[in-house]
């Protein structure tokens, strides 16, 4: 029996490049590199810079120095900041609840056998497809103090005497921006929940109706429990989008009247860019992080696979 000759001894010496080209670890690192660079440049660096700025007194045109928690101490006693926190929470809560209720209702309707079903499904997506600024401008016009089509229609119908001051009155302004946000956000919720509804086998509904369930009981005992995992995902995203909303408010009210519609995102921008206080603006933005983390934690635990979703095994 002859010993098999060692490949290393007989094979010609290969170049460093060729050897690295066959190294799985090196190749893996190489393929990962572009994504890592991208994430570092456009995600980690701006986030880190934002957090850092929050600890400095940087102004536009002037490098700041580290001042510790001074920005946060100032915000703690700033009533406008607390107003924006209240506004953001109110805006997110009311808009999310409305988007969920209306979105679910729309999804249930679209899940029925309607004529022109795909046409309606496409139409529902429209508000989401239109650029935010464009739809915000349309709402701005709809909410105009003099030329509002809503006021005009109601006056023609004889329901009101004078135009409604949509954006000039604090309560009206809050309701108006929430309505605009709901209009924009419904398609995302509706279409996502519709996708969820379609994963529920028709035979389950049929079995339930043979079991004697009314349509409400079928919804309550079959549809809703089976939809909860998707509801959790969709509403987490919806809450995150709503909480960080900026464009709609900025176009419609710029935070007014008297800060009644200032959200944390718009206040942060307001203080940092037009106001020039980059450090303070960054601190406001960083103050949003705990709220967002809370939403993510909520979904993380809410999304954990329920017992009935777990597969086989004893």
């Amino acid at each position, binding site marked *: 029996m002859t010993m098999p000759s060692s490949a290393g001894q007989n094979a010609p010496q290969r170049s460093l490049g060729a050897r690295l080209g066959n190294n799985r670890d090196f190749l893996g690192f190489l393929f990962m590199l572009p994504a890592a660079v991208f994430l570092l440049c456009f995600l980690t660096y701006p986030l880190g810079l934002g957090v850092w700025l929050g600890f400095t007194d940087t102004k536009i045109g002037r490098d700041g120095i580290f001042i510790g928690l001074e920005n946060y101490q100032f915000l703690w006693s700033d009533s406008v900041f607390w107003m924006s926190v209240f506004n953001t929470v109110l805006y997110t809560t009311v808009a999310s609840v409305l988007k969920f209720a209306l979105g679910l209702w729309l999804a249930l309707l679209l899940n029925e056998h309607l004529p022109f079903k795909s046409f309606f499904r496409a139409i529902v997506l429209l508000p989401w497809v239109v650029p935010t600024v464009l739809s915000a401008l349309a709402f701005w016009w709809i909410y105009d103090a003099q030329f509002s089509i809503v006021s005009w229609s109601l006056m023609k119908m004889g329901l009101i005497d004078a135009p409604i001051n949509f954006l000039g009155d604090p309560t009206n302004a809050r309701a108006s921006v929430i309505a605009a946000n709901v209009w924009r956000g419904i398609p995302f919720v509706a279409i996502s929940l519709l996708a969820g509804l379609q994963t529920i*086998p028709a*035979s*389950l509904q*049929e*079995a*339930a*109706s*043979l*079991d*004697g*369930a*009314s349509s409400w*009981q079928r919804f309550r*005992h*079959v549809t809703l*429990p*089976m939809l909860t995992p998707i509801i959790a995902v969709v509403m987490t995203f919806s809450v995150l989008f709503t909480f960080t909303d900026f464009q709609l408010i900025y176009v419609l009210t710029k935070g007014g009247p008297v800060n009644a519609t200032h959200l944390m995102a718009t206040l942060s921008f307001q203080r940092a860019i037009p106001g020039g206080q980059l450090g303070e603006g960054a601190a406001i933005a960083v103050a949003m992080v705990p709220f967002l983390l809370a939403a993510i934690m909520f979904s993380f635990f809410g999304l954990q696979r*329920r*017992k*009935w*979703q*777990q*597969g*086989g*095994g*004893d």
Partner: protein
Amino acid sequence: MATVQFAEVKKSFGAFPVIKGVNIDIEDGEFVILVGPSGCGKSTLLRMLAGLENISGGEIRIGGRQVNNLPPKERDIAMVFQNYALYPHMTVAKNMAFSLMLNSAPQAEIDKRVNYAAGILGLTNLLDRYPRQLSGGQRQRVAMGRAIVRDPQVFLFDEPLSNLDAKLRVAMRAEIKELHQRLKTTTVYVTHDQIEAMTMADKIVVMHDGRVEQIGSPLELYDRPNNLFVASFIGSPAMNMIKGRLDPQDPMHFVAKDGTRLPLTRAYANAAGRDLVYGLRPEYIRLDPNGYSVPVVVTEPTGYETQMVVQFGGAEVSCVFRERIPARPGENISITIDAEHVHLFDEQTGMRLTA
């Protein structure tokens, strides 16, 4: 328990008719199987009985009461679906109790009925499991348990065994039949598997293309198929069909296309001069040293019997022999026909000819 009648029942999807006037009478406590190839309308007919599809024409009666326009929940029927349709977010016990819970039955009554059904089906230890944690056969039993708990007038089964493996299917077949003997509830069962139909049914309804081809007990269908469709659908391996005509000189003989003369035991009226099909079940071909010498095409020994395909009468003919035969493909064997069991069909109309 109740009788079920279909009277001239029709169904079309748009302009496309799928059920073309079906008449079936099902007696109280009977186990009836609707069988036919895919797309013959058997599942649609069952769903119409359940109230899951509306009826385009005719009348369906359960226990003498017309149910055409009753919603499913008022028909007092229970159905086992092909995919079982168990509620994935409920335990086995809750799945079975669901209908009683909707009816606001007292908890003691619910427990009693669920435990009774679980006892019958051997599910007592699985009541706290979720459907995902069960095997296919167990899920099947839960689906049946959900039906039993209801104590309905009629059980409906829609291809309940087709998602199970072959061995389990045979076991569940026996279980379902035993269950029926025990509960004696009128049962309508849909399958495309003629063996299921033959082994389980009191009465088989063979359907094809939206029509009923024949109704009868399993052996009636096997021994006296009305037409070529039923003859070829019932029985495995399928009946052999040899094309040809009667011998003009001797009406007691059939001449196949290749000239082979095959025996008949009866004289058939109106058969002379027409294109005919000579129907011969594989088990009515016997070995006989003095018979026809035919070449073997395929041989399939199963141990218990030997199935063979031979070239005979211008066709490939299946035979089933009790003997073990050493002949290999290409070699010849000698066979004869049990002419007493031959069926003669008109090739044009497909109908069976009577003597």
